[in-house]
């Protein structure tokens, strides 16, 4: 066994706190429940954000990964947590979005004064925090089994959020989601079992040193990656996503679409670049990309044909997930010295981040529109702009990012992916990105056109939306746009702490 050589670094304890703080909050809400859910959550939210920022700062300061070896037990026997540039980025993203969603949900998930405890607030806030811990663990975990537990934690937090309102479709969606995610988990676990049988370790660093091409590795990676794809809802494994994300309350949908489906992708990324034997398998990478292409084109078209706004956004999520999978061949074919110095890598991560922000904003905006109008049928959105102008504006800005129009983050991401695809002569990917952009613009404009049309006679706003909620949505959308100002070059921070490819 090669010593993997993890050593707790300065500030490593932050990683533990990042994972545990939401759990502490969750437990506190569960135990003290009774009316205090929101208050506790609002203590944890800024705390978590602070921790995430501190970790990112530490990574940036030292220029190396922040590591924590739990209990002092060296992997592979023990477990290590590690934040590299990518993890830190995603943790900050997660914290930001959760804080925004928390603000957005403030008041909508509070206990009514005449009750000692209500179902929705308690469940919502506990699950949100559980989800946060799960995401942080996914981003930090270095051990495949630890990551399995984290994924399960994620699933268990996400599924009940889907059926928070208990309607039939949502329960159905939740059950589908759960069952399909479970197949994904089992596939992942099967792969882990095979890897353990072959190498006697599930530590990523250890596997990276040992892994070579043999049937066990191939089958294991095949099962794991495909299992994760099912959890990421990549076409054609997207059966569960649209109803689940469309049925959840807006605040939950935002988190599910923005963050939850990214976690399995993140793991695929890690499996591919950190575990799989190098140099990677071109054909398999192409296969992933092709699924991405299908996802983009197919689901964008379906999004265009949706009648309801939230379903449209949900399908758009599946389509946007597709872009992420384009990364594999682009990065591998690039002539950059290492994966993370290639433009495709940065483009992929940027796409992930900007989509997260944009999609969160979009779902929240859709939620506000639905609250104001009492429905979310696209053909009937006339007057939305008079009712909730800021939300519509946010929707438009977020849409800008989805369409990949400048100056948004989505634009830069797509530009980078497009450049990488052009450089590596992956013309199908080029075509998919372009077509996807056109289709995204079409469905976004379809909504905007409706929302900005003159209201029908007798139009009435159903609910008054507090300004701060609209501003939260706008803030997310603006951050998605502002992301467009990152330089169009490989972003050094994303490469911190990653080991160079041989």
């Amino acid at each position, binding site marked *: 066994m090669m010593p993997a050589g993890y050593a707790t670094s300065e500030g490593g304890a932050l990683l533990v706190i990042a994972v545990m703080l939401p759990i502490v909050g969750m437990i506190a809400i569960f135990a003290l429940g009774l009316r205090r859910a929101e208050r506790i959550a609002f203590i944890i939210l800024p705390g978590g954000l602070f921790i995430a920022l501190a970790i990112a700062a530490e990574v940036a300061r030292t220029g190396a990964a922040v590591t924590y070896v739990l209990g002092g037990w060296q992997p592979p026997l023990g477990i290590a947590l590690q934040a590299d540039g990518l993890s830190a980025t995603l943790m900050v993203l997660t914290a930001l979005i959760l804080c925004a969603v928390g603000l957005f949900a403030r008041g909508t998930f509070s206990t009514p004064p005449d009750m000692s405890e209500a179902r929705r607030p308690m469940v919502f806030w*506990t699950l949100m925090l559980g989800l946060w811990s799960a995401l942080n663990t996914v981003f930090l975990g270095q051990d495949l089994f630890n990551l399995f537990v984290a994924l399960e934690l994620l699933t268990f937090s996400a599924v009940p959020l889907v059926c928070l309102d208990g309607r039939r479709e949502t329960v159905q969606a939740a059950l589908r989601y759960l069952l399909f995610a479970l197949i994904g988990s089992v596939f992942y676990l099967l792969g882990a079992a095979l890897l353990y049988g072959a190498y006697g370790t599930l530590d990523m660093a250890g596997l990276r040193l040992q892994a070579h091409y043999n049937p066990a590795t191939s089958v294991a990676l095949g099962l794991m990656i495909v299992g994760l794809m099912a959890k990421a809802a990549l076409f054609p494994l997207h059966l569960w996503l649209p109803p689940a994300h469309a049925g959840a309350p807006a605040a939950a949908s935002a988190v599910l679409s923005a963050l939850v489906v990214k976690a399995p992708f993140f793991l695929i990324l890690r499996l591919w670049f950190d575990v799989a034997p190098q140099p990677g398998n071109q054909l398999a990478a192409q296969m992933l990309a092709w699924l991405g292409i299908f996802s983009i084109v197919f689901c964008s078209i379906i999004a265009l044909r949706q009648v309801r706004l939230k379903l449209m956004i949900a399908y758009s999520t599946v389509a946007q997930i597709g872009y992420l999978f384009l990364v594999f061949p682009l990065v591998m074919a690039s002539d950059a010295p290492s994966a993370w110095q290639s433009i495709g890598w940065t483009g992929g991560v940027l796409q992930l981040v900007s989509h997260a922000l944009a999609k969160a904003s979009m779902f929240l905006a859709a939620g506000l529109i639905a609250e104001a109008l009492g429905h979310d049928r696209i053909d009937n959105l006339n007057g939305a702009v008079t009712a909730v102008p800021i939300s519509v504006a946010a929707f438009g800005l977020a849409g800008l990012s989805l369409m990949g129009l400048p100056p948004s983050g989505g634009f830069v991401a797509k530009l980078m992916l497009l450049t990488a695809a052009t450089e590596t002569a992956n013309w199908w990917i080029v075509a998919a990105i372009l077509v996807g952009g056109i289709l995204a613009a079409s469905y976004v404009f379809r909504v905007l056109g409706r929302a900005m049309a003159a209201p029908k006679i007798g139009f009435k706003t159903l609910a008054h939306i507090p300004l701060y909620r609209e501003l939260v949505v706008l803030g997310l959308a603006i951050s998605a746009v502002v992301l467009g100002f990152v330089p169009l070059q490989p972003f050094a921070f994303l490469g911190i702490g990653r080991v160079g490819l041989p």
Partner: protein
Amino acid sequence: MTLLPDLALVLLILTAAVWTVAVRDRRDAVIGFIVVGLLLSLAWVRLNAVDVALTEAAIGGGATGLLLLRACARLVPRPAESVLPHPAMWILTGLLCSVIAAGLAAIVVMPVEPPATLAPEAAANMGELGLGNPVTVVLLAYRALDTLLEKVVLVLALIGVWTLTPEQFWGGAPASLRAQQSSGALRLLAQVLPPVGVVIGVYLVWNGADHPGGTFQGGTVLAAMWLLVMMADLREPPEIRLHTLRLLVILGPVVFLVAGFAGFWIANGFLSYPPAFAKPIIVIVEAALALSIAVILGMLVAGPAARAPR
């Protein structure tokens, strides 16, 4: 020759499994599954994994079986389910499943030499902690984070189940678990067995530090006893708003967390134990976890609240 019993056991397991999937009635399928679970615990014995065998015996024969049978009982009767939607489809599915199984089998029959294992590392480090059961050491020391997170998973699952409470029943008690007809036999069992079960449960937890056994097995036994009492209608499921219940649910994770964070002060960091006190700390954590597991498992089986709080 020496493989014969193993082959027989495997054959039995697979037969029961096939039947479980193929049988038309869902309750029969559950029974089939229980049988598979019992056989599997024997298989675990043959795999020299006594801890797992105990777990499987407690879960497969006890908790999961009960959970599924209760589900059967609460589902409205439906005409027998046909398994096969369309010949093309089941042939295709069968083919694909076989290919996957063949892939796994192919890897299994080509073991790596020397076998990949962490046993030497596990053994080398065990001395520090003073515990005799390597599985417990792995669960509560080397991989304590997994165990902690898994307990959180249980809590989340409980919250998930409770989410399904209709709004007006929130805080109330889950539907009764009572048998459809009160039965003296059941009542007697529920009066006599639980104390014995408690002793055995405590034994499994306590003994688990040095011998096979442990929190989860003990906790499951405790949960089973509680469920038995509820099924015999000697106790009703508690209301989910009860503070004591909530505290019991989180007791394990909280103690675990406290022990974990205490490591920052008394040892080398999170979830690290000072060698001198490792065993007592671990045992206390285990005890708390077992209690929580018992309560959580019981409530998971009981399901979401089905009546308004009193």
